[in-house]
């Protein structure tokens, strides 16, 4: 199965790098990272990700603005977005079945297993063990 392309947009460069390492070692994903919301719009058009992991609080353009622009662009409008934020609590997400205001939120910090499960759900993939681990 071809690796799914994931675009991680987070102004914490270290978090993006580690997320890339951990997601790619599952063998299921090909990850590209961006630290600026404005640049993420161009990358989304060229990289054509299957899913975008988007931080909310970013200095140049916040996550909701990035999401709105992606949704208004015919090339990127159908790409599912998962918001990854430190601003909400796990409990809030659980009580609202993971969706707040129609958007799917994930609370930081998050384990790779939980993240992979959420990505699989968003992509309509059956949840399962990683195909191959890169050691």
């Amino acid at each position, binding site marked *: 199965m071809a690796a799914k392309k994931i675009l991680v947009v987070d*102004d*914490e460069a*270290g*978090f993006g790098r*580690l*997320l890339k*390492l*951990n997601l790619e*070692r599952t063998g299921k994903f090909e990850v590209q990272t961006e630290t600026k919301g404005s640049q993420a719009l161009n990358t989304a058009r060229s990289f054509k990700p299957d899913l975008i992991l988007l931080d909310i*609080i*970013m*200095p140049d353009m*916040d996550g909701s603005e990035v999401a709105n622009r992606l949704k208004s662009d015919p090339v990127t409008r159908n790409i599912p977005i998962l918001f990854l934020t*430190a*601003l909400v*609590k*796990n*409990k809030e997400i659980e009580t609202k079945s993971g969706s707040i205001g129609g958007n799917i939120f994930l*609370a*930081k*910090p*998050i*384990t*790779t297993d939980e993240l992979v499960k959420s990505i699989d759900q968003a992509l309509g993939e059956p949840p399962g063990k990683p195909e191959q*681990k890169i*050691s």
Partner: protein
Amino acid sequence: MDKAGTVYPSVALPRPEGIFEVSRKSTVIRLRWPVVLVCAYLLLYSPSPWLRPTTSHFLLLLYILSNAVLHRLDERLFDSPIFYIPLVMFDTLFLTTSLILTQRVGTDFYLTYFLIIILCSLWQDFRWSIVAAVFVSILYGYVLFKTTEIYDSSLYIRFPFLFVTSLFYGYFAQLVRDGKAIREQAEVERWKTVANLSAGVAHEVKNPLAILLQGVEYLADKTGKQDPDVTLVLKEMEEAVHRANSVIRGMMDFASIAQLNIVAEDLNLIIERSLLLLKNQFDRSHVEVTTELATDLPQVQVDRPRLEQVFINLFMNAVEAQPGGGRLWVRTYREGAPGGNGVAIIAEVENDGKSIPEANLAQVFDPFFTTKRNIGGTGLGLSIVKNILDMHNAKIQIRNRENGGVRVALQFQT
């Protein structure tokens, strides 16, 4: 990094003004001059056999001087409610003494005088104190004209006396009310600041925690399998990250009670919902739940999700207090006559597990106080409970039961 987009509100309070579009200090001094005049009239023109004229003059001079001293005091003193306590006591004593020394007024006038003070204290509004003066003057005039032959012109001074008294006490009663409103506003501002700070801190701390967790997972996969010690170290590190995260979550819970959405709710339904949410927990822990919920309870004004949080915290504490299983009683009832004023609704949560050491009882509501640190306790649970209840003007009392276990009583006003 933007500090979580937070706006830190100013905690500086608007400085309350007096009336007559002048400062409080000027208002107080202006209101006291008519009182001085009234007392002067009473002392000088109604000479008492108990006081020599020189003593009367001395007392009057003292009173005038007291108002002159107020001119010299710092403006900021007049913003403190404590400052007014001796002032009003001194004025009340002087005014009442002057009235007694005249020996010209009867019981009906004393009653009128006290009625003014009572009305001003109840209404706590300067403008309404004028209404009180008019109302009481009409009442007193009616009684006076019915019982006295009107020939003494000195009787008429009693009416300005009532107005002066009314304005004087009306203003101080309003100060008390304004002071309370300002304190409540300050409390709200304080909570807003705490909420904003917590959101900012949570954001700034959770991001590094997220990096640490991802890093630990990566290292565990890369190197942990080759060395059991490395696995152990990384496991400890991961647990530390989760523990730090739970403290941050607790802090966010602690802060988020600033935004309450108060509506009329059925307390029994809130309790039943909270019990339902923890049903699996009770079953797993072998805790048998008994409910005795009164059916005639009036609704209470509460924020339902926050109150559920209160009951869930209390139920979880009860479960943790009896790790080998036990019993939990939840009961509600009302205190006070049905339909009467001052009806309180009581909710009791009781377990027969471990008691709280007496030395710890006074500290259980302190933030970060816990005896369960080894099992992940953050010490914020009861602190959050207390703060949520404070925001609802509800009371909480925790006591040990005689035969072991703990009884928690919550009291809500309807």
